[in-house]
């Protein structure tokens, strides 16, 4: 490219970007900027906001409810990210040694939870966890009836129960992602490992895991962000209960803004949540950046 065309392409680039950028700035960037502004005010969403500086932030960080919410979102990283990624990795590494008939069907099914509205997913799982629901019935039928309980209403079990819905939603996606990653690995590497006398486990760590590093980065990034900003599932299953056993930051935002009518302090949680997600995304980017 000579310098003339490069100059030309520079200018027209803005025209190509303009529609997407203006839509994004107007409906994402601008409300976010306003949210930051309101986070410095006491505001009910209606009357005149009152400047309070960083009071909202201090108040929210000190609030046991918000602390619980932040803690739960870390627990959710386990259920939304680590667990499905492990399931995906292990099963994909066991799976891909053969070309399977009917694989297409399984892929379709495994991806299905990604497609269904969370409203519907929430309804289905509320029923699954019901005292008379399928999970307790299955437990009873295999002689574990003593374990039956109203899962979502149990202070100790509600959080893992809701978290498992997150696992259910993403594990199939992770399996599919790693399957395709493993398919890309040069078979010669496995043969080389065999010659070196590696067992299956060494093979996994020496060949498979490095081979799917890009997929691992993608899967962890998507699922960790999903876990941190989860809202719909909690809203549809427990609304943060029992007590505050399953509340998460996004639910706090919603409830403070719409139930309590304290939009300013809700905004301060929103800003903190966005910051947390950004940091997580950047850290993951650093870890999984491919060597140049």
């Amino acid at each position, binding site marked *: 490219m000579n310098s003339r065309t490069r100059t030309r392409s520079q200018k027209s*680039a803005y025209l190509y970007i303009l529609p*997407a950028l203006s839509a*994004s700035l107007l409906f994402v960037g601008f*409300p976010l900027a306003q949210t930051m502004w309101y986070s410095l005010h006491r505001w009910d969403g209606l009357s005149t906001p009152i400047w309070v500086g960083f009071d909202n932030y201090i108040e929210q960080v000190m609030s046991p409810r918000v602390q619980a919410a932040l803690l739960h979102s870390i627990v959710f990283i386990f259920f939304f990210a680590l667990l499905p990624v492990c399931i995906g990795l292990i099963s994909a590494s066991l799976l891909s040694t053969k070309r399977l008939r009917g694989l297409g069907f399984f892929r379709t099914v495994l991806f*299905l939870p990604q497609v269904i509205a969370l409203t*519907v997913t929430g309804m289905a799982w509320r029923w699954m966890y019901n005292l*008379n629901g399928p999970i307790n019935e299955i437990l009873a039928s295999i002689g574990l009836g003593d374990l039956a309980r109203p899962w979502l209403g149990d202070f100790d079990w509600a959080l893992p129960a809701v978290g498992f819905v997150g696992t259910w939603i993403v594990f199939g996606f992770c399996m599919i992602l790693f399957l395709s990653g493993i398919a890309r690995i040069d078979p010669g590497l496995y043969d080389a490992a065999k010659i070196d006398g590696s067992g299956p486990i060494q093979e996994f760590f020496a060949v498979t895991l490095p081979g799917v590093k890009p*997929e691992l980065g993608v899967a962890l990034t998507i699922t960790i962000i999903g876990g941190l900003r989860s809202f719909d599932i909690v809203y549809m299953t427990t609304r943060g209960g029992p007590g505050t056993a399953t509340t998460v930051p996004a639910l706090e935002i919603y409830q403070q803004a719409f139930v309590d009518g304290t939009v300013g302090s809700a905004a301060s949680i929103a800003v903190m949540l*966005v910051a947390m997600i950004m940091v997580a*995304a950047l850290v993951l980017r650093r870890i999984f950046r491919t060597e140049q």
Partner: protein
Amino acid sequence: MTSIFREPRIADDAAPATASLPEVAPRRRPLRASLTPSALLNYLLLGVGAVVVLVPLYSIVAVSLQPRGIPAAGLGWPADPQWSNYVEAWNIGTFGVLLTNSVAIALPVVTIAVLFSTLSGYAFATMRFRGKELIFALLLIGLVLPFEGTIVPLYYTLRALGLTNTMWGVALPEIGLYVSFGTFWMRSAFSQAPPSIVEAAQVDGARQWQILWRVLVPISWPSITTIVILFFIWSWNEFLVALVILQDPASRTAPAGLGAFVGEYTSDVPLLAAAAVIVAVPVVLVYILLQGYVIRGLTQGAVKG
């Protein structure tokens, strides 16, 4: 989500992923399937995964067919399936109207968001300009934003524009949100086009605009199809924006209408389940018809980007 969108790595041996996507697991040891113990293990694993996915979905369908007014129990298929629950839910919930509204919003969202994403993805993939990194970072915000946090200011923004209670009031914020993902997506798709093709076109005197539409878009259809389907699914399932922006019951979308339905028929569990299935079915159908694109596109494109 940044790591999806690393600078492109052109795979050493593979043809551009946009042009021909490799099947899952075909290249390694392409043996014919036979029921060896390891194949059995494979089916067992996949089978367990599939059952875990399907049981909750099956159970909500089973509940939707229970007789109304009797508390549902267990996993059993109802002895006398009440298909009339669906008719009832459809009529009471005016789902005909709601589904039409959802389609009327999803179609412009998909069309415009894909178009905008294609244009900006093209610029980011092939052009140099000042502020590229900064603008890219700005767009990144849309990938991490929780809508709950900005919905109140968003409402006032839309009201200042006179868009509340209109279809565009829902469509435009969705477009604004989706173009972030779309731009990253199309950037990575276009980045993978072999430079030789673009160069050849340039030598032929093709302009930027023509290169995009005559050269790059035709070989990037799989990637475009993927975001078409993803945007459709996302738009269809969007709940909060539709809830807040659309007040007129006649203009509600299917998920928002489902919310109202849940409030109104709160103790009629089979009817609610039937309504939920009605809302889920269209998007599941779209997915099943086009699932090859979604899965292949996501698994390949996400990493290749």
